């Protein structure tokens, strides 16, 4: 049941766009990247179940042509979870804006300090150490 | 008691919606629907609407007919403008007096007005009783004004309100 080309292309594009956005500096873009990745992942879950078919409702269609209900249930859970975390990250973005005046994802200061730091006076063995 | 009565239309509406949703009627559903409607109304006691309304069935039907006709003709008109004029189309914002001072009626008129293609209410001055109506390729503003007033009158009639003088 190889995934059809249209869906594959769509997934590729959604994932690419999501990955691209998530690597941006603006937290809002990152967030949209996550949302889009979530869409891509949910779509993938759905198509992972197989090709389209009758909705899985007893009494509405033929059992043999029904779609796989399990990926749908999982996708539903995933949708909810993605939504929950999106709202949380939004709140974080807002807080960041309140505190910092922007919603940029900044570099870590301590990391930069390590990069630029001099050596540690206390531990560096000096000439006097052996005297 | 009157408060209960005043809530009746909303209550009935909710039960109706309930039944429409289920798409079938049996006693169990009705009872459940009543319970749900009562529950919803009790949980969120918004003040009742529809004070002093006496709908007139015939006028109401005529309004509906008028609306359907208007909807179709103006849809065709807008469609024509889409095909014929396209980018060249122009609009106008025209002030029209509001005939009623009842929130409900003003809203109904504005709503029905906006439903039809070609025109919509952009802004509403409730105190000054003016509709600012946007019209597509209006030609003569006076005709637009007349149309709007005409519609308002039909609405007032359908809901049994007395026509008030335009300001």
């Amino acid at each position, binding site marked *: 049941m190889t995934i059809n080309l249209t869906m594959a292309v769509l997934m590729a594009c959604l994932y690419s766009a999501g990955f691209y956005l998530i690597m941006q500096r603006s937290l809002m873009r990152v967030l949209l990247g996550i949302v889009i990745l979530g869409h891509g992942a949910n779509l993938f879950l759905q198509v992972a179940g197989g090709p389209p078919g009758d909705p899985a409702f007893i009494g509405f269609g033929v059992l043999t042509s029904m779609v796989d209900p399990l990926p749908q249930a999982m996708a539903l859970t995933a949708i909810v979870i993605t939504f929950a975390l999106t709202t949380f990250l939004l709140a974080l973005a807002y807080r960041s804006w309140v505190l910092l005046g922007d919603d940029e994802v900044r570099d870590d200061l301590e990391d930069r300090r390590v990069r630029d730091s001099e050596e540690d006076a206390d531990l560096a063995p000096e000439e006097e150490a052996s005297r | 008691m009157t408060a209960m009565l005043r809530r009746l239309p909303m209550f009935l509406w909710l039960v109706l919606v309930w039944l429409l949703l289920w*798409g079938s009627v049996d006693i169990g559903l009705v009872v459940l629907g009543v319970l749900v409607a009562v529950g919803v109304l009790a949980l969120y006691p918004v003040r009742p609407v529809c004070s002093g309304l006496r709908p007139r069935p015939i006028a109401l039907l005529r309004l509906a007919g008028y609306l359907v006709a208007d909807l179709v003709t103006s849809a065709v008109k807008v469609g024509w403008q889409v095909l014929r004029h396209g980018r060249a189309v122009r609009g106008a914002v025209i002030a029209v007096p509001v005939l009623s001072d009842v929130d409900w009626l003003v809203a109904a008129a504005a709503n029905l007005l906006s439903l039809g293609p*070609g025109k919509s*209410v952009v802004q509403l001055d409730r105190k000054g009783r003016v509709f600012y109506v946007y019209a597509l390729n209006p030609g003569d503003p006076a005709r637009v004004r007349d149309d709007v007033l005409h519609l308002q009158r039909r609405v007032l009639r359908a809901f049994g309100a007395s026509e008030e003088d335009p300001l």
Partner: protein
Amino acid sequence: MIDVLSAALMLLGALSCVVGALGLVRFPDLLSRLQAATKPQTLGLLLILAGVALQLPAKYAVGLVLVALFQVITAPVLSQLFGRAAYATGADERDALETDDLGERLADRPGAS
């Protein structure tokens, strides 16, 4: 017979939608696009719903009535909100209007907007 009617309704509705969408593309400013978008769409949807209702058992058809009702209630409200916001925020588009009574009123009372 019912099939023919329903087919006609559906096709008309769909056509109406196309026309509306075309207007959405072709019309020059927001307010005019608004006319093209909400109105033929609403009509189109109503027609399609009617056509569909004819094809369905009553159990479901009544549900479509609800859809239509909601559409009728909400579409104009949205259109007014739209219009107001579009008018308030689109200064250059206001200038393109043939007549602008609202603009005059606002000009009379500076500071109003």
